């Protein structure tokens, strides 16, 4: 279990004994990273928190260590972001809490929770300009008095107030908590080590309770509601809000979740994504990086170098530089094909995320997703699945529970063609004359997708979580932020998957050298001819799909298939097993049993559906 691993090994950032650990904490989209970048400068270390896709940045400010945490609404363990933030917060010497001046009522809950933990805090009251523009008036001095911590007004995008914040860090204070709550925490302190631990135990945080061996039940609601009451009292005393009409941004935000506007806008967004990624990047860019650079220059160079050592034949050469060479295939696949696609996907997703549009897509798609045991948030891995199943499988970690992760992973492995495969599928459909065949392919795939989802929702035990998200205001994304995110996510992806691609290539070389691959082709040939009514050579294409899904589809070009045959072959190959790298990542994320079920299930399903399509098409 990834979350368990993460909770038990808090990150340790090396720091001189005298240095303070300054931890940035705040709700999502409040501008924390702008503070972090300004305070730490260029030398920043970003690492993937163990077992999560959550990035943690750390850097230096003078002697002090500054850590950025993922955006959270409260400290607990409702999801990976919280688990990571919780562990870092509990180790903090000073907390810089960035709050959104427009949404103080929401943001101060976290502030008050950190104060209740007894950690010294400074509050940066950010986006004070936006609040002023909306007519929200905040009595900053009064806020500081009531919380009993320094509060500094800031406009992070213009770095206003940063010097004051830096100075205020020396005056960070523990702040005003609730006397009765603190007494209860003090009682717990003879059983746990620290006050933050005591609070989280009282709030029934499962991981901290397990770690400390102390559990208190049934108190969270009371503690939360009491804190909410205190926060509401504070906000009521310091915030003056006008009763007014919603501005243009707010009205646009609302329109975007209404189907009448939302669906056309979503369709247009997806169309743009397809044009940019599916056509331009997957075609033009990859054609250059994979064909021209990798196959034209890099591979011959690598082969030459390997030949110097191993000679140009024999088992070592085949394994390193043969058809599925561990060196040649991995390098081409990762840098020639995947890198441009992954960068393009993360760029677009980060833009959507930062603009505030992504949560609205989740809201719009919630209805469809909840029919197949998921909620609207699952749209994110689904979209990424059209890029690379490996990348998307890693992203299923954002989903609410393991049941949802299983459904999403299986759906992608079965029925979503990755961009590499999609490119070839589109080309083949065009070769088949497009039109009817293309529509039939689309309808069949959507139908099967829904069917698998419905079936899994029925069969899998447990319950999926419901959508419950905050829709942030729409904003123009900041290019620097989008680029930074893309860079870190891409690096993290490469770090995490490279080994699996190497292992995949090695496994394939072994399968080929031992004749297992050919045996599998031979095994599938009768089925291909008799049941799918395709030429025997098409079975090679299916087996090659195991290597790389697009290799498989590409093999169909040379067979001179009829329109119906193309339809049958494409349906079969899309449903057929995912590529070997994604199989390995699925195994890592979901375990062996699940992976075996998906693998054999997709072989069975691919041939079953392909055969049915062949029969039905034959009758029509």
């Amino acid at each position, binding site marked *: 279990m990834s979350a368990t691993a993460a909770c038990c090994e808090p990150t340790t950032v090396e720091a001189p004994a005298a240095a303070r650990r300054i931890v940035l904490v705040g709700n999502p989209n409040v501008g924390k990273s702008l503070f972090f970048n300004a305070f730490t400068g260029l030398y920043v270390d970003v690492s993937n928190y163990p077992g999560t896709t959550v990035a943690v940045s750390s850097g230096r400010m003078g002697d002090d260590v500054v850590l950025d945490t993922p955006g959270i*609404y*409260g400290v*607990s363990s*409702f999801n990976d972001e919280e688990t990571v933030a919780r562990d870092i917060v509990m180790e903090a010497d000073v907390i810089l809490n960035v709050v959104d001046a*427009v*949404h103080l*009522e*929401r943001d101060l*809950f*976290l502030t008050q929770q950190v104060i209740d933990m007894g950690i010294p805090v400074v509050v940066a009251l950010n986006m004070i300009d936006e609040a002023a523009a*909306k007519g*929200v008036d905040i009595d900053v001095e009064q806020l500081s008095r009531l919380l009993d911590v320094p509060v500094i007004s800031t406009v992070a995008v213009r770095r206003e107030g940063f010097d004051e914040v830096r100075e205020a860090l020396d005056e960070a204070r523990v702040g005003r908590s609730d006397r009765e709550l603190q007494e209860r925490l003090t009682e717990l302190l003879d059983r746990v080590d620290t006050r933050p631990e005591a609070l989280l135990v009282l709030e029934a945080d499962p991981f901290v309770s397990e770690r400390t061996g102390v559990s208190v039940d049934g108190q*969270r*609601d009371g503690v*939360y*509601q009491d*804190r*909410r*009451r205190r*926060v*509401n009292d504070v906000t009521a005393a310091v915030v003056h*809000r006008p009763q007014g009409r919603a501005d243009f941004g*707010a009205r646009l*935000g*609302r329109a975007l*979740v*209404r*189907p009448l506007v939302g669906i056309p806008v979503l369709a247009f967004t997806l169309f743009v994504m397809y044009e940019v990624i599916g056509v331009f990047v997957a075609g033009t860019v990859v054609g250059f990086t994979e064909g021209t650079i990798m196959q034209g220059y890099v591979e011959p160079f690598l082969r030459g170098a390997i030949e110097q050592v191993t000679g140009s034949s024999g088992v070592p050469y085949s394994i390193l530089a043969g058809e599925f060479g561990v060196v040649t295939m991995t390098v081409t696949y990762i840098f020639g094909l995947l890198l441009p696609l992954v960068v393009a996907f993360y760029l677009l997703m980060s833009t959507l995320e930062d603009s505030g549009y992504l*949560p609205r897509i*989740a*809201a*719009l798609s*919630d*209805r469809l997703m*909840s029919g197949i045991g998921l*909620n*609207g948030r699952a749209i994110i891995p689904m979209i990424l699945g059209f890029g690379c199943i490996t990348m998307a499988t890693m992203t299923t970690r954002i989903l609410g529970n393991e049941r949802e992760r299983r459904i999403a992973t299986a759906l992608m492995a079965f029925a979503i063609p990755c961009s590499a495969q999609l490119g070839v599928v589109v080309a083949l459909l065009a070769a088949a004359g497009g039109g009817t065949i293309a529509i039939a392919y689309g309808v069949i795939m959507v139908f099967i997708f829904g069917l698998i989802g419905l079936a899994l929702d029925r069969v899998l035990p447990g319950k999926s*979580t*419901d*959508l*419950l*998200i*905050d*829709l942030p205001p729409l904003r123009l994304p900041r290019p620097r932020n989008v680029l930074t995110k893309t860079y870190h996510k891409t690096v993290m992806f490469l770090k995490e998957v490279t080994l699996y691609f190497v292992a995949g290539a090695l496994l394939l070389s072994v399968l080929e050298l031992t004749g297992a691959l050919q045996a599998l082709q031979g095994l599938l040939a009768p089925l291909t001819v008799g049941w799918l009514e395709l030429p025997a050579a098409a079975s090679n294409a299916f087996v090659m799909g195991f290597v790389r899904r697009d290799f498989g589809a590409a093999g169909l070009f040379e067979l001179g298939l009829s329109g119906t045959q193309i339809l049958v072959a494409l349906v079969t190959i899309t449903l057929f097993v995912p590529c070997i790298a994604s199989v390995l990542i699925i195994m890592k994320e979901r375990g062996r049993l699940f992976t075996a079920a998906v693998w054999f299930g997709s072989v069975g399903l691919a041939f079953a559906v392909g055969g049915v399509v062949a029969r039905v098409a034959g009758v029509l």
Partner: protein
Amino acid sequence: MTLLDARPGRPVRILKIDDERARAQCVRFGIGEGTVVESAEKLPFGPVLVRHCQQEICMGRKLARRVLIEDAAGA
């Protein structure tokens, strides 16, 4: 009456959120039992949107059915 029955645009008072995790998350967002919110939007067959102090919360349909409310037009 549940949140799912609320007419869009009406102020409603949250009486009970019958889901432990959602209850905690809502309190963090600023919506506790007793809070008056605006039932802002109901997507056809889809989630429900609730507005409270310039923030919008989107809640799945099944969850909205477990949120008990009363009309708060007079409050």
